[in-house]
């Protein structure tokens, strides 16, 4: 029983898990979306409302990424590099959006900005719409993906310890310099994973957004919502065709990550 045999066994086990759990569902989606032929598939994905929904989804994902990356770096830095009371509670609070049912995540914004919410009179007075409009969609997406980046960074920076940073600080380096020169090189892969994860999740988010969207076609319908609407209209094929756009975007994102990762690692080496 050499290490080679173990290696092959482990790889095969992983590969079969991924095949059964991930690849087969994906293949199912693609099979369905092509069921009525290529021409009809193309007409579904180039539909006016599909394109509109795609744009909105990309916008929401872009804002989400920006917000959550900033938050991720700052929160991981403050949690792992300093000692303070209530750290566990803070970490747990950051995790909360993960554990909240997407339905509730959407509902909380309705309970603030909706007609039954406490901030509604204020919104009316300023003539601003949050829920059932684009800002609400962005907000809901940010909420559900909020911990992604920080969650990726915290265990990583924890296992790293902060001796190097402390040494640098004793030598008088500023916070930003320490981050840039010492911390960042260690965490850049983790950060990248977090960002990619966040992007993938933001693109596919359905539950929370569905509650705050109002499903106004061409205005507040995101791509996953459009998939759901088509599905509920008894258009299974069309809905899976639109879903396959999301799959393709996800695959593009993942390829990009691999290229970036490869380049950066070669620079290092």
């Amino acid at each position, binding site marked *: 029983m050499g290490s080679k045999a173990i290696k092959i066994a482990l790889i095969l086990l992983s590969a079969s898990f991924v095949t059964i759990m991930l690849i087969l569902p994906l293949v199912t989606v693609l099979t369905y979306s092509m069921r009525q032929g290529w021409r009809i598939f193309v007409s579904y994905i180039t539909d006016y409302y599909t394109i509109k929904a795609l744009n909105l989804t990309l916008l929401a994902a872009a*804002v989400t990424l920006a*917000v959550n990356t900033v938050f991720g770096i700052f929160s991981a830095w403050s949690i792992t590099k300093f000692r303070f009371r209530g750290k566990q509670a803070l970490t747990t609070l950051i995790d909360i959006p993960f554990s909240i049912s997407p339905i509730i995540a959407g509902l909380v914004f309705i309970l603030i900005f909706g*007609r039954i919410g406490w901030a509604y009179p204020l919104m009316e007075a300023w*003539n*601003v719409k949050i829920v059932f409009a*684009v800002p609400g969609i962005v907000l809901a997406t940010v909420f559900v993906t909020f911990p992604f980046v920080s969650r990726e960074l915290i265990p990583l920076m924890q296992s790293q310890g902060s001796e190097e940073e402390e040494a640098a600080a004793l030598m008088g380096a500023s916070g930003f310099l320490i981050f840039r020169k010492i911390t960042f090189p260690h965490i850049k892969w983790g950060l990248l994973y977090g960002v990619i994860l966040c992007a993938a999740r933001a693109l596919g988010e359905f539950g929370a957004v569905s509650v705050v969207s109002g499903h*106004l076609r061409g205005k507040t319908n995101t791509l996953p919502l459009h998939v759901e*609407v088509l599905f509920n*209209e*008894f258009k299974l094929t069309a809905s899976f065709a639109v879903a396959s756009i999301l799959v393709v975007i996800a695959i593009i994102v993942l390829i990009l990550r691999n290229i970036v990762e490869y380049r950066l690692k070669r620079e290092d080496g």
Partner: protein
Amino acid sequence: MKRSILSKTIAGALLLTGVFTAFAGFASDNAAGKISITNVSYDPTRELYEQYNKLFRAYWLREKGQEVEITQSHGGSGKQARGVIEGNEADVVTLALEGDVDEIRKAGLIDAGWVKEFDKNSAPYTSTIVFLVRKGNPRNLKDWDDIIKPGVEIITPDPKSSGGARWNFLAAWAFSDRKNGGNEEKNKEFLKALFANVTVLDSGARGSTTTFVENGQGDVLLAWENEAFLSQKEHPGDFEIVTPSLSILAQPSVAVVDVYARKHGTEEAAKAYLRYLYSDEAQRLEGRNYYRPSNPNILREFKDAFNLDVKLVNIDDEFGGWDAAQAKFFADGAIFDEIYRRR
């Protein structure tokens, strides 16, 4: 050093708050010159309204010389009603159930007496509950008695989570009520036998259809007539529609959401939009989209498509209206819960 920490903290906080308010800033719609109305509807009406909106746009331009832009929204009926209550500013709603529209009235957004605002209790088109069975009807299911026999597998959505599924329950109850001479206990037994045969209780009508059609579960799907037609259309030749001897008149309701329409200044167009649903052209369009036109003359033009012999009870006469039916059957701890608890 100390001072700068504090000021940086404040600066960071201010910056972020600024970003958020900037986002809140890009506000809603508003088109100049032309009028814009939003129609919040339920799931399977998309094609109907896509076609109807074209018809109405031409009509309004002819009549008023004004361009009208119509934004559609589709989703589960109850969820859509909730959206409107929570601030989704629809000018008109065209939902599956009178009860859902009435919730919007209770929230103070629709004026009282909306049911009588348009003809036929504000239901321009109707539907009913039918059985969708597999090709050749292998279990020979013809009526409600057949589907409660042991061994028959039924697929229906959950009346608790799907408004539309409440019609299924009520239709079965009405049938049993006739058969058992109004004996409530016998009716409960009948419904209990029916739900004992339910193998998958999806949360929505579409989920049930997928379960039945795509995943091959069950012998019979209880469905709205128009949705049964849509399933047949997606899978020609695989399924048959069986109309039971007695069913229920399902009346999807329409209403102007008065408060929002007044706010947007679209009352006139919104009213006209719904009234025009009763015109002959629109009625025919509804028939072609598998809804039964409420105009009896137009309905007769579709006698080949719909089984017009079925006896249809209506909810007001049979159950004393939505509120009463909701309280008696579907509220927490009411008859539907009891049926499951008694197993």
